[in-house]
């Protein structure tokens, strides 16, 4: 650090412009090449090296293992596509897929709409603006597990606050962990509580890049606030929207921590896998049943699922508010 500061001073002082020409050094062309051509690559290389190590390598390794019947405590045998064909006929896998998609839809659709509304509200002028805007981000700072633990308590069957409140209206207690749809709802609220604010802030940043004169022109033409929102804000937000939706898709389809914590750290996702996601299924196959090959195959199918899901969402979002 001191090195940097000290070295910084002389360069700021006025310098004879001819200095570099006066003292040509040997190997200068190499240094120039290093400076101009290689340095940018060197500077970005850590990311790519890490990606190679922790991203690409595991990806390839998983693909390789998915072709084997690999039991951690037993044998390793080549099965070719055997794991994949078995998986396509495995009801437990498909149940996990349905659970994942179900929770994704229940969580993400309201979340994005809510984030949009929230961002719109935050985009107006009001007192304590910074404080409120930062406040929306607070849930993100808390640990996922802490959130899940607290929500799990709230959704307790016998002593949970949610059932207690529902009881005021004469509702019978709901067994949130046993019934499929309630368990999805419970988990969706955990996700939304954590991520809505985050998405709202990203939307807000997007909204602030929209030129004000568009709104002024619309006002002069007599467009209502609501109309301005749907006809100007939403279409202009499309690039932001694509980012948020793709991000949510990837996050939603790889959902793991919330449902696992919801069932006391057990990856079975309820007594009958009511809320077991594909990630949990992979973990269960790999690290509970020790069937590494099968788990690897499931991981690749999840990868495909995310690609398809992202693709569909991308196409849908591109059509937003656009006749282009």
């Amino acid at each position: 650090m001191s090195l940097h500061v000290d070295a910084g001073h002389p360069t700021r002082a006025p310098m004879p412009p001819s200095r570099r020409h006066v003292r040509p050094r040997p190997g200068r062309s190499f240094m120039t090449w290093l400076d101009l051509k290689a340095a940018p690559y060197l500077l970005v290389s850590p990311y790519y090296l890490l990606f190679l190590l922790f991203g690409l390598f595991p990806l390839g390794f998983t693909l390789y293992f998915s072709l084997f019947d690999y039991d951690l405590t037993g044998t390793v045998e080549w099965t070719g596509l055997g794991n994949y064909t078995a998986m396509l006929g495995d009801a437990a896998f498909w149940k996990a897929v349905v659970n994942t998609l179900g929770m994704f839809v229940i969580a993400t659709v309201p979340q994005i709409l809510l984030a949009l509304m929230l961002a719109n509200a935050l985009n107006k002028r009001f007192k304590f603006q910074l404080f409120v805007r930062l406040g929306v981000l607070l849930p993100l700072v808390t640990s996922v597990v802490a959130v899940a633990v607290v929500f799990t308590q709230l959704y307790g069957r016998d002593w949970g606050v949610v059932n207690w409140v529902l009881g005021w209206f004469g509702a019978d207690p709901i067994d949130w962990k046993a019934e499929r749809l309630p368990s999805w709802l419970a988990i969706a609220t955990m996700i939304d509580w954590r991520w809505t604010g985050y998405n709202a802030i990203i939307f807000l940043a997007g909204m602030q890049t929209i030129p004000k004169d568009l709104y002024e022109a619309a006002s002069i033409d007599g467009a209502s606030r609501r109309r301005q929102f749907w006809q100007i804000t939403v279409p202009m937000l499309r690039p932001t929207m694509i980012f948020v939706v793709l991000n949510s898709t990837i996050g939603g389809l790889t959902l793991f921590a919330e449902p696992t914590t919801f069932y006391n750290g057990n990856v079975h996702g309820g007594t009958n896998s009511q809320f077991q996601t594909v990630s949990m299924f992979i973990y269960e196959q790999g690290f509970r049943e020790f069937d590494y090959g099968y788990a690897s195959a499931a991981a690749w199918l999840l990868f495909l699922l995310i690609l398809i899901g992202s693709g569909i969402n991308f196409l849908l979002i591109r059509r937003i508010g656009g006749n282009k």
Partner: protein
Amino acid sequence: MIAHSRRGRLLAVAAVAALALGAAACGSDDSTGTASGGGSSAAAGPVTVTLQTFGGGKNFGYKEAVDKWNAEHKDIQIKYDNLTDQFEQVYWPQMIQWLQSGAGAGDVVGIDEGGMGLAKAHPEWWADLGEFGLQNRKADFAAWKWENGVTADGKLFGLGTDVGGMSLCYRRDLFEKAGLPGDRDEVSKLWPTWDDFIKVAHKFQDKIKDTKFVDGTNTLYNVVLVQEAAKNGNVSYFDKDNNLIVDKNPAVKTAYDFAQRISQEGLTAKLRNFTPEWNTGMKKSQFATLGCPSWMLGAVSGDGGAGPDFKGKWDVAAVPGGGGNWGGSWLAVPKQSKHPKEAAQVLDYLTGKEAEVSVFNYAGNMPSNIQAQQDPAVQGAKNEYFNDAPVGDIFAKSAAALQPVFLGVKHAQVKNAIESVVSAIDDGSVPYANGWKQLVDDAVKAAG
């Protein structure tokens, strides 16, 4: 400007100092590690032997025995680490990973009976206790308990800690409130068979609405399973050639039918054992009876379980349908341990008479050590928490005669799959009509 650069320099110095400290800390860690590992350096501090166990409440019950050892042995300190309540779902899969990868496991680890089939099949995981002279402990154990600690290739790797035995814990105060007798002998007379047990349950349930008679399906399912297994050649999920016999063994069907019956007749609180909800259920008096192998007493009396508030309210009666052996564990030393010699010493102590008697008095787990079983302190023991129940009389007398149920290599996985279904019919996520079929299907899948 000068101030600026000085601050920069100070920061740099601080950063370097922090780095150096960090490196020094790592370095010192390494050096003690290797020194004590080799056991050669005279300057090395005490060797720490990590003891890893599982279970609810007081789990293995080693607290007092470990405190005593640590006070007396300055050179070897035991670090007692109970990792989780759940063996099949959490502890054992994690342990298998550690054992297979060669790092992470403690120096002495507990293994439930359900994991022993797999443990025996992997001699490469374990240190040979014979090398440390523990072969001479053979006379301390019943033949089956000893044999189960010997690997497929004849190497001694584990010594027994406790055996199951069987009783039924009940809430004396609630029984009296329901107009039933509270005294344990009279309670035992109420239910010679499980049919009688269900009749009593209905009588109780007619009077008391807030408390269910039974915790859930899973505990009594296991009790009935081991009782029935004893009548069917001492096998449950696997036959002695390791073939899955879930669908053929009448013991499994009988146990399942009983579980379904108590659930269908509304006698369960729908709580699965060894979950946070189950622990809360004890604290909130959500159920009045519990199938109690000896080690379950510690799970109830421990702070995680019912805890001190319910001292004297629980009692222990005879179990309907005769005795049985559910559970019981072993201790072993993983090969990856850096201090196998010291670990073996600790293991020797923990499975020895003195420590096992201490466990029994502290937690209630019935020793598998024959000398401990015959010790007057065990034979005549009363459990203060359970209203001074004569637990020595209840468990010790029958302990010597207990027969092991054979458990296959994949027992833990199959048990886990089956217990999910047994709990699923209780919480309603699997309809009663589909329960048995799903149980068999899931068992086949888990074994495959």
